[in-house]
């Protein structure tokens, strides 16, 4: 009951602000970029792919600055797990996956509304900073080295296989991990000579890895879609957050983390 009162209050407040803006255009708007409704409140629960952790944390910090009434909480996990959790009845307002197939699955199960693309990601080769395997890029220099990639069953592994085929390379990894972060971990710890991770993972690891961009990486591009969850407890908040992620401000943050334009 109290929740509902609060929500009604939020709607009234947002109407008041909108009305105020319309009535006096001379007053500078509280949201300069004009993304979403002016007043968003309450807790917004965002289920986001693990690879979005850094970018979304920054985006939410800026989002909350613009909407002080709102609070954004995250659950970062593998896209597949997130969809499973939603399917199992987990409560969330926004879903952002690292690939289209998992979002398609959520749409098919009517767990989310229409998804929108907001970022892209491509693979890159990373090595430890001192490059002990003398890797020169996504080429024959990977042969016979301790190469770690994602297993074909997971999105990053699927992309890796696609890229290898397009490049005419036969990869002989020493390990096929179930998460791209596990691949990165094996490289940053120096266990592996090289690994294939997303450019965002490489950017996030900073000086702990040396990155070698792949020329035709676009053949295995990952599209990141975002959608508001069906029957979300805070649908208005979810809409606002989703819109903010797709706004110029959101994209600028995503770009600093190595994500490409959708």
């Amino acid at each position, binding site marked *: 009951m109290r929740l509902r009162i609060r929500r009604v209050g939020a709607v009234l407040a947002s109407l008041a602000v909108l009305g105020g803006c319309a009535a006096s255009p001379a007053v500078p708007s509280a949201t300069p970029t004009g993304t979403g409704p002016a007043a968003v409140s309450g807790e917004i629960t965002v289920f986001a792919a693990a690879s979005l952790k850094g970018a979304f944390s920054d985006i939410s910090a800026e989002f909350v600055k613009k909407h002080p009434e709102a609070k954004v909480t995250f659950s970062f996990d593998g896209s597949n797990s997130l969809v499973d959790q939603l399917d199992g009845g987990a409560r969330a307002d926004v879903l952002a996956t690292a690939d289209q197939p998992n979002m398609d699955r959520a749409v098919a199960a009517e767990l989310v509304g229409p998804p929108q693309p907001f970022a892209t990601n491509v693979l890159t080769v990373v090595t430890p900073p001192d490059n002990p395997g003398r890797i020169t890029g996504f080429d024959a220099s990977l042969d016979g080295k301790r190469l*770690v990639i994602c297993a074909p*069953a*997971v999105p990053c592994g699927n992309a890796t296989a696609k890229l290898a085929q397009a490049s005419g390379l036969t990869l002989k990894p020493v*390990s096929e991990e179930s998460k791209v972060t596990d691949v990165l971990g094996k490289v940053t710890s120096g*266990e592996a000579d090289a690994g294939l991770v997303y450019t965002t993972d490489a950017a996030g690891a900073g000086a702990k890895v040396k990155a070698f961009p792949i020329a035709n990486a676009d053949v295995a591009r990952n599209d990141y879609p975002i959608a508001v969850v069906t029957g979300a407890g805070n649908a208005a908040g979810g809409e606002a957050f989703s819109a903010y992620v797709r706004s110029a401000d959101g994209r600028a943050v995503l770009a600093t983390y190595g994500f490409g334009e959708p």
Partner: protein
Amino acid sequence: MIRPPLPRWVRAGALLAVIFLGVPIIGVLVRIPWAEVPRLLSAPASLDALGLSLATCLAATVASVLLGLPLALVLSRGTGRVTVALRTLTALPMVLPPVVAGLALLVTLGRRGVVGQHLSVLGIEIGFTTLAVVIAQTFVSMPYFVVSVEAALRGTDPGLERVASQLGAGPTTVLRRVTLPLLAPALIGGATMAFARALGEFGATLTFAGSLQGRTRTLPLEIYLLRESDTDAALALALVLIVVAATLMALTTWLTRTSAAARA
């Protein structure tokens, strides 16, 4: 010795506990695509994972017995602070999160680890090998062997050993002819428990050994991977794991009871 009956509410509580533990297992059994199980289990990746798991767990169990038996014998005789410290150390991997065990192995035996970097110079690299899997499994499963054997040792009557010794048998003979035969059921029980624990080992293996079909991807890792793409296949493999683990635990319980009966 017959004890008076338990109050009814205790039985009700026990029933609740059984339901709590049993329902998820029944849930898995209901959800398993039984008609598909033979096909799913005969997939090369499944067979590789199963074979690798059995082989590595067997190796880990042998290592647990060879290393753990002397430790259990020493612990069972000790009383001082050193023994307490040793016993704490022994039991630690049982309560550590597996990923912590894996990290500990990685930063020690990994290529840049405290010990691993010296091995690396000698050309020995453990990471990403089947040996790494066995090491991870032994690390987490040996405590189960040591703890159960030590408990059995403390329960045995020292009289027989003393008599053998007084009759002129050397320490090794006493151990071989008296202690170990008395201990046989506990040894098998402990080894079975260690095997079962090794079979379920997941976090430490993933962290330390990686995951590659036929080399380091054990049954739990294969299930974890399949879960991402093919829930049915993951469930079919889960069934194998449940059946094997249940058989092993039943065996352990039976052996423990047999040994207790033999002592009584």
